[in-house]
C-alpha cells in the first residue's frame, strides 16, 4: 500500500538500501557455499580413500582388530545388504598383521585382503600403481638426452624413486609446466615401469614400494609371510609379487601388502570370513546414512554392527571439526560486516527522513500507523534485497561449481599425489540458502527496531526543525 509507494518515491535511497541487503545476501551465500564445499570435499577425500561411508564389522573389531574378530560373510548377510536400495556395491576386506620375510630380513606388515576390482571403487588403488621408476638404467638413458641442466642435475637426487603419478615426477625433477609439454613425454616413456595387478584365486600380492625396497624384492619375486591365524592357528604362505604400489604416506607404504581376499582368507585359516565390508552408496547424506544404519542394524544379528563414517574416522573428524569452527568465526566476521552495512544504511535513511516523519505525524498520522508503514517498507526492501541476492548468487554458484577455484604451486601437485584434487569447490544449492536468508532477514528485523523506536520517541518540534 502506502509503504510500497513510499519506496519508489525516493528511488535512489531505496535502491541503495536494497543494494546493501543484496550484497549481504550475495556474499554470505558465496562464502558459505565455498566453506561448505571445501569442508565436504576434504571429508570426501578422506572417507572415500579408505573407510567408505558405511561398513559392517564385528562389534569387537574396532577396539581389537585381531583376526579372531572377523565375521562370516554369508549369502544371507549379502542379501540383506543388497536389498537396501541405496546400496550400489559391496566392497569386502580382510585386514590383519603378519611378518614378511626375505632372506635375513623380517618386517611386520599390514595385510589387506581385497577384491581387486571392487576395491578400486573405494580406495583407488589402481591409481597408486607405480608407473615410472628412475632406476640406474633409466637415469643413464635420460642423461644421454639433451635435457636442460637443472633437470639433469636433479636426476641423481631421485635415484630409484618410484612414481604413480607423472605430475609428482615432474615436480621432483624441477620441470616447469612450460618445459613439461616437450620433455615429459620422453621421460615418461623411458622411465615407464611395467606393473601388474592381483586377481582372485591367484597366489599373488601387491606390495608397497618402500616395503619392496626394504625386502629387496621386485615383480616376480616371492614374498614369504607368517602370522597368527584364526583361533590361534599359524598362518604361513608364499606369494608372487605381481605389482608394486606407491602410497603417499611413507609409514603405510613401508608395510602394506595387498592380497586377493580369497587367498587372504586361506592364509589366515578363516575361509568365508571378512573383517569388514564397506557399502558403496548413492545418497551419502547424513540423514540417509543414519536411516540406513538404523534399519539394517535391526536385521543384522550381533555381533555384527554397522558403522558410519563419522565413527570410523573419529580422530580426523575432530580435527576437521575444529578447523571448521574457525571457519565459523570467519563467517561470523562476515555477518558482522554485512550487518553493519545494513544498519548503517538504515540509520542514514531514518535520519534523513526525520522531517518527513515529523510532518506526517503533525498532519495527524498516528505514530503506530507510521511505524507499521516503515516496517513494511523495510520488509519490502529486505525481500527485494534477498530475492536479488539469491537470483544473482544462484547462477554464480552454478557456474562456480563447474569452475572451482584451483590451487596452484608445488603443493597443489603434492596434494594431487595424495589422490585429492587441489580445488575449492562450491557447495551446490541446498538448505544453506534458506539459512543465510533467514539470518539476513533477522538482521533486517533488528535493523527495523531503530527507525521504529525513533518514530515513537520523536518530538514533533525537533523533527520539524530538521
Amino acid at each position: 500500500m502506502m509503504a510500497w509507494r513510499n519506496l519508489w518515491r525516493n528511488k535512489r535511497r531505496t535502491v541503495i538500501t536494497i543494494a546493501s541487503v543484496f550484497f549481504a545476501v550475495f556474499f554470505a551465500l558465496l562464502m558459505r557455499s565455498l566453506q561448505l564445499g571445501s569442508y565436504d570435499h576434504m571429508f570426501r577425500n578422506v572417507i572415500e580413500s579408505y573407510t567408505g561411508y558405511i561398513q559392517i564389522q564385528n562389534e569387537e573389531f574396532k577396539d581389537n582388530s585381531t583376526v579372531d574378530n572377523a565375521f562370516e560373510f554369508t549369502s544371507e548377510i549379502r542379501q540383506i545388504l543388497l536389498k537396501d536400495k541405496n546400496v550400489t556395491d559391496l566392497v569386502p576386506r580382510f585386514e590383519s598383521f603378519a611378518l614378511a620375510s626375505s632372506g635375513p630380513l623380517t618386517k611386520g606388515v599390514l595385510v589387506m585382503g581385497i577384491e581387486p576390482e571392487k576395491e578400486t571403487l573405494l580406495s583407488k588403488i589402481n591409481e597408486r600403481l607405480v608407473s615410472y621408476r628412475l632406476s640406474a638404467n633409466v637415469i643413464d638413458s635420460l642423461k644421454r638426452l639433451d635435457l636442460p641442466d637443472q633437470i639433469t642435475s636433479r636426476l641423481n637426487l631421485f635415484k630409484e624413486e618410484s612414481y604413480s603419478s607423472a605430475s609428482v615426477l615432474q615436480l621432483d625433477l624441477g620441470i616447469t609446466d612450460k618445459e613439461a609439454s616437450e620433455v615429459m613425454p620422453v621421460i615418461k616413456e623411458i622411465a615407464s615401469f611395467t606393473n601388474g595387478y592381483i586377481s582372485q584365486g591367484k597366489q599373488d600380492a601387491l606390495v608397497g614400494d618402500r616395503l619392496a625396497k626394504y625386502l629387496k624384492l621386485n615383480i616376480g619375486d616371492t614374498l614369504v609371510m607368517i602370522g597368527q591365524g584364526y583361533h590361534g592357528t599359524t598362518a604361513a604362505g608364499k606369494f608372487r609379487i605381481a605389482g608394486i604400489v606407491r602410497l603417499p604416506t611413507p609409514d603405510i607404504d613401508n608395510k602394506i601388502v595387498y592380497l586377493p581376499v580369497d587367498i587372504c582368507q586361506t592364509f589366515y585359516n578363516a575361509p568365508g570370513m571378512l573383517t569388514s565390508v564397506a557399502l558403496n552408496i548413492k545418497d551419502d547424506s547424513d540423514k540417509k546414512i543414519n536411516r540406513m544404519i538404523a534399519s539394517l542394524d535391526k536385521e543384522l544379528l550381533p555381533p555384527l554392527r554397522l558403522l558410519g563414517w563419522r565413527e570410523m574416522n573419529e580422530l580426523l573428524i575432530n580435527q576437521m571439526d575444529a578447523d571448521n569452527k574457525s571457519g565459523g568465526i570467519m563467517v561470523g566476521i562476515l555477518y558482522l560486516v554485512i550487518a553493519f552495512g545494513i544498519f548503517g544504511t538504515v540509520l542514514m535513511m531514518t535520519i534523513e527522513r526525520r522531517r518527513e516523519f515529523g510532518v506526517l505525524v503533525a498532519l495527524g498520522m498516528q505514530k503506530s500507523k507510521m511505524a507499521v508503514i516503515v516496517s513494511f517498507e523495510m520488509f519490502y526492501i529486505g525481500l527485494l534485497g534477498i530475492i536479488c541476492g539469491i537470483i544473482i548468487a544462484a547462477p554464480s554458484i552454478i557456474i562456480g561449481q563447474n569452475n572451482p577455484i584451483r590451487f596452484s604451486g608445488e603443493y597443489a601437485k603434492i596434494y594431487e599425489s595424495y589422490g585429492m584434487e587441489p580445488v575449492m569447490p562450491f557447495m551446490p544449492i541446498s538448505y544453506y540458502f534458506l539459512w543465510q536468508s533467514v539470518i539476513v532477514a533477522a538482521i533486517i528485523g533488528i535493523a527495523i527496531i531503530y527507525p521504529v523506536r525513533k518514530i515513537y520517541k520523536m518530538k514533533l518540534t525537533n523533527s520539524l526543525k530538521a
Partner: protein
Amino acid sequence: MIWKTAWKNVWRNKVRSLVVISSVIVGVFAGVFSIALMNGMISQRVDDALNEEISDIQITARDYRTNYDPQLVIRDPEETISKIKLTEGVAGISERIILTGMANTAYKSTGVQIVGIDPEKEKQVLKLYTKLIPGTGDYFNNESKSSPVLIGEDLAKELNIIRYSIDSSTLVRLKARGLPESVMAKLVLLRGKRFTNERQFIKEMKALFAAGESKKYGTVIKKEAWSFRNGARFILTFLDKDNNQVGAAFRITGLYDISNSVFEKSTVFVKNSDLKKLIGLQDNSFHEIVVRISDLDRTESITNTLAVKLSDLEVLSWKKLQPELALMTDMVQQFYLVFGIIILAALAFGIVNTMLMVVLERTKEIGMLTAIGMNKKRIFYMIMLESVFLSLTGGVAGMIISFIVIRITSNTGINLSRYAEGFGAMGYSALIYPRITLGFFGIVTILIVITGVLSSFYPAVKALKLNPVEAIKSE
C-alpha cells in the same frame, strides 16, 4: 581554510560521521582479525609439530632413515656439532641416540622408539618438557635409583599403567563439580573398583548410564577417575651393541600429552648416559642431531648451508620430514585468502553503500553551497577531505581496537574446545592464538582507508553534477 571547514563539517553532523567511522572501524577490525585468526591457526599447527615432535632440522648419517639401523651413527659428533654451532641462525642443538625396542608391563608389550637425550640440551630444541601432565613427575630432575624415562600418556594407557578408579575422594570431587544426584547414585556402585584400562572403564560406565548422561558427564568422570602412580615402573627391552637383547627397569618421571597420539604412543625418552651404559657404547657417537633455528622463514637457507658444511651427513628440514605439514599450511593459507577476499569485498561494498547514502543525503546542502556560489571544485575537495578525515579517524580507531583485541586473545587464546563433546573427543587442543605481523596490520588498515576515500568519489561527483535548484528542492 577548506581543511578547517571540512573538519568542522565532519563534527557538525555527529550521527552521520559516526556511522561512517563505525563502518571503517568494523572493516579494519574484520580484516585484521580474520588474518590474525588465519595466521594463528596455521602457526599453531606447525608450531605444535615442531615444538613437540620434530623440531626444525634433523641431521643423521646418510641412509640412516631408510631402516633406522642402529649401526649407522654420526661418527665424529664433536666436530659436527662445532660446525653447526658456528652456523648463523642456529638457536639450539641436541644429540640423541635412537633405538627400537619394546616396552613391557605385566599386561602388555608394545614396540617403541627409545630416544636417548641430554635432558638439558633437549630443552633447547623441543618444548616437550612443557607438555608434562602436572603431578606426574618432574622431567628428569629427580634423582632415583632406577633410570628415568619420559613417556606419552597414550602409551601409559596402552600399557595399562593408567588406572581408572572411583574412590571416596573422586566422588567428593565429582560432587563438587555439580554432578546431579541421579548420576552420583549410580557412580557409587563403581566405588572401590579399579580398572586397568580405559576401554573397560568406558564399557562399564556406558552400561551404567543412559546415553544422554554418558555424553554429558562422561568426560568429566573419566578425568577425575584417571589415576597415575608417580614413579611407576616398566621394562624396556632392546638390543645392545653386540646385538644381544638387553632389558632394564625404568621409572616414569613424567607423562607428556601432545596432540599427535601416534607419536605419543610410540616414543619414549631416556637419558643418553643411561642408554649408553646399557648398550655398552663407549665412544661418543649419536644417531641424530636435532637443531632449532631462530627464524622459521629461513628454514630453506639454513638447511642448505648446513647440508653443504656437513656433506657426508643427511640434513633434513621439517618441510622434508613432514611434508604434510607444509602442505596443509599452504592449502589453508590459500583457503583463507579466498575467504579474506570475500570479507574485504563485502566490506568495500558496505562502505561504498554507506558513503553513497551519506553524500546523497547532503545533496540539499551541496546544492545550497553551489547556489551561494562556492566553487564546485572546492566543494568536491571539501567532500573528499571529509571522507579522508572520516576514514582516517575510523582507521586509527579501528587499528587501536583490533590491536587490543588481538593482544588479549593472543595471550588467552580463543577456545574452541567446547565443541569437543562426549566420551570420544577428548584432548584435542583447539586453542587458537591469533597473531599478525605489523606489516599485515599496516596493509589492511591502509587498504580499508583507501576504500573509504575512493568510495565517496562517485557519489561526490554525482552530487556535484546536480542542478543546484534541483538539489535544494530534493528531499
